[in-house]
């Protein structure tokens, strides 16, 4: 593992973390505004969260090699 890979993987994880926080906060706002749509919002939130998570894990695994 070289220094640039570590920094690159770290940057990607920071980005993914920021994205996850943004999704979470927006979903919270949306649920507070429309509690009856909570189920649908949650599903959409989890899907986008999973996509981001895949990105972060991909970075970690590629950075590890």
């Amino acid at each position, binding site marked *: 593992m070289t220094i640039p890979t570590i920094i690159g993987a770290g940057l990607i994880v920071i980005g993914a973390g920021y994205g996850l926080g943004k999704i979470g906060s927006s979903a919270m706002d949306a649920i507070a505004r429309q509690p009856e749509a909570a189920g649908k919002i949650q*599903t959409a939130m*989890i899907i986008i969260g999973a996509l981001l*998570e*895949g*990105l972060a*894990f*991909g970075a*970690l*695994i590629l950075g590890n090699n």
Partner: protein
Amino acid sequence: MVTIKKSLHLLAAVLFAMMPAVSSANVDPVQQGDTVHVEQTAIAVETTEHEASHGEEHAEKSNDQFVKEYIDHHLMDDHYYSFFGDKELHKHYGFALPIILIDNGLKVFMSSEDFVYKGKVVENGGQYFKYYHGKIYEVDGPNGEIVYDAEHHPTNKMPLDFSITKNVAGLFLASLLLFLGFTALAKTYKNGPNALPKGIARGLEPLVIYVRDEMAKPNIGHKYKQFMPYLLSVFFLIFLLNLLGLTPLGLNVTGNISVTVCLALFTFLYVNLSGNKDYWKHIFWMPGVPVPMKIVLAPIEVLGMFTKPFSLLIRLFANITAGHSVVMGLIAVAYVMQEALSTPGAIGISFFLTLFLTFLEILVAFLQAFIFTMLSSLFIGSAVQEHDHH
């Protein structure tokens, strides 16, 4: 009567909740005496990188290294089903699995502890085989050695390996359980459309309906029925394998990249083989954009075809692998921190951390199965969708 039944249920639930604690048996149970330096064990020999594969060699190894190697060993596939090991006696408790090789014809023999952990050479049909780092190599004779190149990679010939490994055994177990559960569920519908399932099937029915109503119907549309068998299989297989990984059986099937590659490949084939004209048109000749843009978009869309299943496989593999390493690492706290915290303190801390994390892992087990099925149905939906606007 009711109270008796209730307390039985409670007992069963408590026992089930205690299962992760029992899995600490997977980390060496007889490690009480010398904590700083331990003799190199059979397991350590098997997993040590860049070291000779002789079981007789004794090297000093610290506790931390031992734990690390044990976790690495757990995350790998194995040709011998070992539940736990005895470090001092160099013994593994488990059962042998059949080895199936194709090398000048079919070679079938049972693996043994000596073959997998102690580097014994096995003869079958006039050929000699030796085990090294989870792979089987062909050697010259009964005392044949593995020849290494400059980077310490073996140069011996490798026969084609179709063995029933630990993961394959785990997959068989999961399929058997699924088969039994769903036959029970299917049988109840013979008694009429409103018959109530009994036993384990009653727990499966709501999950089937959940997959249908929350994933298949909203994402695929009215054609959802033909894809239900695949979505249900994939959901229940992943969910059950994830849960089996949390039991003391020591399975790590969905944390093996070959298994997740295979599952993602199925989704890839399913999406692309059921794709309609619109789907292919959107990939190669995106409608509604200028011609230069169409040319630019085509390679990006083709790349997208492959990145979707790739992210599916990486997500499942990485989540389960990370979960298993963290749980095993926390169990290892009981051994590593023994000197600093005294034995009861170390075991107590390790117990509570592991308990907490195992509950989280149950959530992750469900979430990963959900996500895999959800995204699969989303991709299938995008492939079979009909567009009205052109």
